[in-house]
Each structure stands twice: as C-alpha cells, then as structure tokens.
C-alpha cells in the first residue's frame, strides 16, 4: 500500500529525514517510535504534504502512485489520513459543516453522490457512537474550545467518517489521560480491518498496550535504525532510547573515521 524509498527531506535548509525506507501493507499496523527530535512527526508531515517540508531525495508510492506529486487534498481523497498531533482550532468553521464538506469532496472524487442531510446526520451519529465521542458538534466551531482529549477524539471521529485506507496517527496518545487513551484506542481498534492500515507515531510504549502493532520501527536522527515486532517496543520501554542512540552514534563515528581515513589515503595518493 505504502512504499517509502530512501526518503530525504528538509525544513528551512535543515535536514530532518535522511533516508527512510518503509513498506506498509493493507491490514498492518506499524508503530514508529523514537526520541524527541528524531523526525517522527516530520515523516507524518511529509507524507501528508505539509508545504514547508521539502523532499530532496527518494520516493513515496501510495498504491503505486507517486504520493509526493499530489496536493494535500488529493492525498486525503486517495485515502491517506493524518490524525494531527496538534489539531488546529478554526473559529467560525462549524464542525458539522467541515465534516460534510470534507466527506462530500472525497465522495465526489470517488464518483459517489454526496449524502443528503439526513443520511449525513445519521452517519455522524453512528460514528460518534462508534468512537464514543458525544460532544455536540452542530453549533461549535472546529476544535474551538475543545479540551486536548476532545480534540484527539474529534480526530478519530473524522477518521471514522472519512474511512481512509491508510491512517497516520501522530502522537495521538500525547496529552491523553488513561481513560481518554482507552476510548481513543478502542475507536481505532474498531476501525482496523484487512483493507486498511495504520501507522502510529508515538514516543511511549503505553499506546501499544492498547493498539497492538504488527511491526515496530525506531527512528533516530532521520533514519529507521531498528525494526522488529512488538517485543522491540517492550525492550525500548525497559532500556530507554539511550542504548540505541549510543549504538548508532558509535557506528556513525566509525563511519566518519573510516571516511576520513579513506580521504586521507586519497590525499596521500595524490
């Protein structure tokens, strides 16, 4: 479904992704973990098409199509969903109008007729129930005045409504108390199927107790430095990230030294 090959990206001339390789197939749940500043959220932003992120190398295929060529809304209509780490408040845009517009645009793109008002409301209600999010949406602006937990649950509601094939959850667990985390996870688990896939970005192992991943990857300094199964997450929980960092840094230092030596040899030859 998603194939990332040697992805390099930068923000304001700062390199943040330095060669990511990752394949996600339908029905899989991947977790991407890593210390702060390792590039986890940047990866999510690049995949969703945030403007100030510039891809300098590599490619991303989404069902064989070049994802990087698509405008953010086309990616969304093709079925890529990003649950934002910090969902933005947009005063004056009502939640319900927003949801309806988004759903209509995606349906139109797929050649489906827009839902009529009644149908739409029924669907919203059903999905709200599914993700246990009973906030009154009609008269409230998008995310405005929502608590941190409500914002995250609103993201999951949108996920349920828009039915993407690939959902990227960017630190959806951050800022959630244990009850909210349980509700959000329950929602996600209900939405899991053979046809869709999830990429969960998280700093802590905690979320993975509720949503059990098929694969775990560790991101450090813009690269995936280790991949494994859910046991890797447990190992990280136990040992922290430092042992991995050290391993990587050592390796890099060796490489650098090697490079310098080679350079030195070259110079010597010349």
């Amino acid at each position, binding site marked *: 479904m998603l194939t990332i090959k040697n992805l390099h990206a930068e923000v304001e001339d700062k390199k943040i992704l330095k060669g990511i390789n990752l394949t996600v197939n339908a029905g899989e749940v991947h977790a991407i973990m890593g210390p702060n500043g390792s590039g986890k959220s940047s990866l999510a932003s690049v995949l*969703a*098409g*945030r*403007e100030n992120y510039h891809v300098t190398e590599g490619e991303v295929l989404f069902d064989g199509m070049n994802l990087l060529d698509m*405008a*953010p*809304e086309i*990616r*969304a*209509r093709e079925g890529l*969903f*990003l649950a*934002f780490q910090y*969902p*933005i408040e*947009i*005063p*004056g*845009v009502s939640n319900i*109008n*927003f949801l309806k*517009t*988004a759903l209509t*645009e*995606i349906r139109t*793109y797929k050649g489906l007729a827009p839902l009529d008002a009644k149908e739409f409301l029924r669907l919203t209600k059903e999905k709200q129930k599914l993700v246990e999010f009973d906030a009154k949406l009609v008269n409230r*602006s998008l995310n405005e005045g929502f608590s941190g937990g409500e914002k995250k649950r609103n993201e999951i509601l*949108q996920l349920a409504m*828009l039915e993407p094939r690939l959902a990227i959850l960017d630190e959806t667990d951050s800022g959630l108390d244990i009850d909210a985390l349980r509700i959000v996870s329950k929602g996600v688990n209900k939405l899991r199927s053979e046809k869709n896939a999830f990429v969960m970005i998280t700093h802590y192992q905690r979320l993975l107790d509720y949503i059990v991943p098929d694969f775990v990857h560790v991101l450090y300094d813009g690269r995936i430095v280790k991949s494994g199964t859910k046991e890797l997450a447990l190992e990280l929980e136990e040992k922290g990230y430092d042992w991995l960092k050290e391993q990587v840094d050592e390796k890099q230092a060796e490489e650098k030294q090697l490079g310098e030596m080679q350079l030195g040899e070259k110079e010597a030859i010349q």
Partner: protein
Amino acid sequence: MIKDLTIPLYGELENGFDTLIAAAGRAKEGNEVLKGRKTAFHTFTERGFPTIKNEDWKYTNITRFLKDDFAIQTPPANPSTGLNAYVHPEPVDHALVAGAGIESLDCYQLTLVNGNLLSADGASHRLPEGIRLITIAEAVQDPGLAACFGHSEESEKYHFTALNAALFSNGLFIEVKAGFSLDKPLHIIHVFTSGYNLLVQPRHRIVVNRNASVTIIESVVGSVPEAKLFVNSLTEIVLEADSKMDHYLVEMAGVNSRLVQHTMVSQKKNSVYNNYTFCLQRSDLLRNELHVLLNEEHTETNLYGLYLASGNQLVDNHTFVEHRKPNCYSNELYKGVLSEQSSGVFNGKIHVYKDAQKTNAFQQNNNLLMGRKATVDSKPQLEIYADDVKCSHGSTVGQFSDEALFYLRARGIGEETAKGLLINAFAFDVTEKIKIPELEAHVNKLISGRIF
C-alpha cells in the same frame, strides 16, 4: 470656486444654483428649504470635490471616478402631483428587485428607483399607523418639516454632504411615532439605474421617537450596463430618548456604479443604534461614511461591517463615533477580504470629548489580503480628552493561517473550497451578529456567491 478641468461636473455646476434648481423643478420649494440648499451650494463650491490632499480622502482618489461626463438628476418625466410628488412612474427590472428580496422573510417592503418611490409599490399604504412614511419631495413641502431640510452645519460638514444638501432629489422621510414598535422589519430596496451617465443624489431622513423601535434593512442594487452612475446619498437618522434602531445595509450595486453614502446618526439618551453594513457590491467604488453623534448619556452603539472586494474595486469605509456625553458605549468590528487587485480602506475614528467620562469605546478592524496585488489601508484613530475611559482599537492585515488551510486540505477539501470556508469563517464574526436568521442566510449566500 475650485476649478478642476478633469471633473466635467464642475462645468455643470457652474451654471449656477438658480438654473440647477429650476431645471430640477424645485423652484417652488419653501423659502427655508431653498435657503438651506443655497448655503450648502455655496459651501460646496467653496470646497469643491475632495482630493487626496484631504486627510479623509488620502487613500481614495475620487477624481478618477468623477471624470466621466455626468448629468445631474432631474425629476422623472411624468411625475405625479400633490403629496406623492416625484414617484417613479415606470416599471423597473424585476430581476434586480427580486434579487434583493430576502427569502422567506416576513417584512414590509418597498422599492426606490434612483431615490424615487416606485409607484407600483403600494407598500407604504400597508404600513401600520405608527409609521409615517412620505417621500422627501413631499416632506420639503410640509412647513412642519422644513427645518429638517433648511441650513444645518451638520449636513454641510463634508464635501459630498454639502453637495447633496444643495441638490438632493428625492428619498424617504420615515418617522416612527413615540412608543411604537414596528412588528416586522422594513425592507427598502434601492435600485440605481440609468441609460446615460448620471449623478443621483437621494436624501433620507429617519426619525425614531421616544420609546419607539424599528428594524430597517436597506438593500442597494443597480444595473448600469452602458453608462456610469454616481450616487451621492445622505441619510440622517435621529434617535430620540429610549428609542432603538437596528439598521442593516446590504450593498449589492453593480458594475459601473460609484457610490458615496453618508449616514449621520444622532443619538439621544438611552437610545440604541445597531448598524450592520455588508459591502458585497460589484460597483467600482463604494465609500461609506457612517457618522454617529452621541449627544446624550447612556447610549449604546454597535457598528458591524464586512467588506469584500475583487477586480479593480475600491471599497472604503469611514466611521466616526463622537462621544460627546458621559456613560456611552460604542463598539465596532469591521472585517474585510480583498482579492485580486482590489483595494480596501478603513478609517475608524473615535473622539471622546472632555466631558464624556465613563466612556467605553472599542474598535477592531481585520483584513485578509488575498490577491497578489490587493492593497489595504487602515487608519484607526483614537482622540481622547477625558480620563475615566476604556478605549481600545486594533487593526490587523494578514492572510489565512497556513496551518488551518493545510488541516482542511489534509481532510480532502480542495484548496478553493478550503479558502471559501476560511473566508466564511473570517466573516462569521460579523455575520453572526445579524439578529434575523433569514437575513443571515441571505447574506451568507451572497458572501459565498461573491467568493466563487
């Protein structure tokens, strides 16, 4: 008299007051009215039209909108006589009037064509007893009202109001009797239309007596496909003690029209004036001048405005709130969206007089610059001579938040639609203030129509 050869109207005005008045069929008006006109004419000729050297016209070069050869409006060819003098006899483009109609709104509705009441429109007769509504042409013949149209410093205060006070043609005189509350909104549709270049100068006067209340919606529409039309209107509003007026303006005039509209409001004790101005016109120029005088204590004033412009349009809103007495409250919110190469001007002035202690005056102006070549000039001003006051103003110029736009796009909403949503959201702060749901829907529809 100031001469400026680039403004042909001066040639017209040079014919002199008497000739103009005779041509307009006004020679029979009462002495007081004629004298008022004459003084105002003198004042205007002394001043001439404003130029960008006038501080109030710094950002709006009116000369370029006056350079066409305008004829000065004369009465309709076949005027009725008597009290219904200068009623517009001919039918008008029904699509225009229908377009101004507000869906499913229960209201009293009447139509003016270039300031003249449409004769086919019998609405005035259906108004309840508590309202007196006559044309200005009738009003100036009423000795009891002559003083309202005689010489007044206030009416002559500005370049254009002086010209209007000198040569105003027709309009409406509306009086709400003491203690009366009009049960439904009164919707006045102003149609401006002409087959040749024309200067139209309507004048209106609205008096809301003690303890009375009224909601007036004014819609301005127009069609001048083959000529240029210049409208210079003057509306004077008097709110007596304990009265209330909700005043909505929906500007929808079409291309080739230029409008300079002055509204002067004078408020007495405990009165409330709410003004909602929606500039959704296609006209080349729209200049609104809203001047509110708080002449007695404990008044409340709310001014809400929204302006959208595109193409080469220039939209200019000037507001001036004079806090002359203590314990008055005024609040203002104007928001603008400028697309393509349009220009927006906002000038909001609050003047707090020495005696006006316990004044609360607030003002906010926000602008979205959408077009690569769009410009905006904002000039909020506070002049404060009392100390026990709370006053503030703010002004911003900016764009949408990229973050908000990205969020919407990441949910599959196309860029244009997303921008539309964000413009609506931006306008929402103003549109949500509308108290009539049917009108709110009407305005929202017009905004959407204006964006796409």
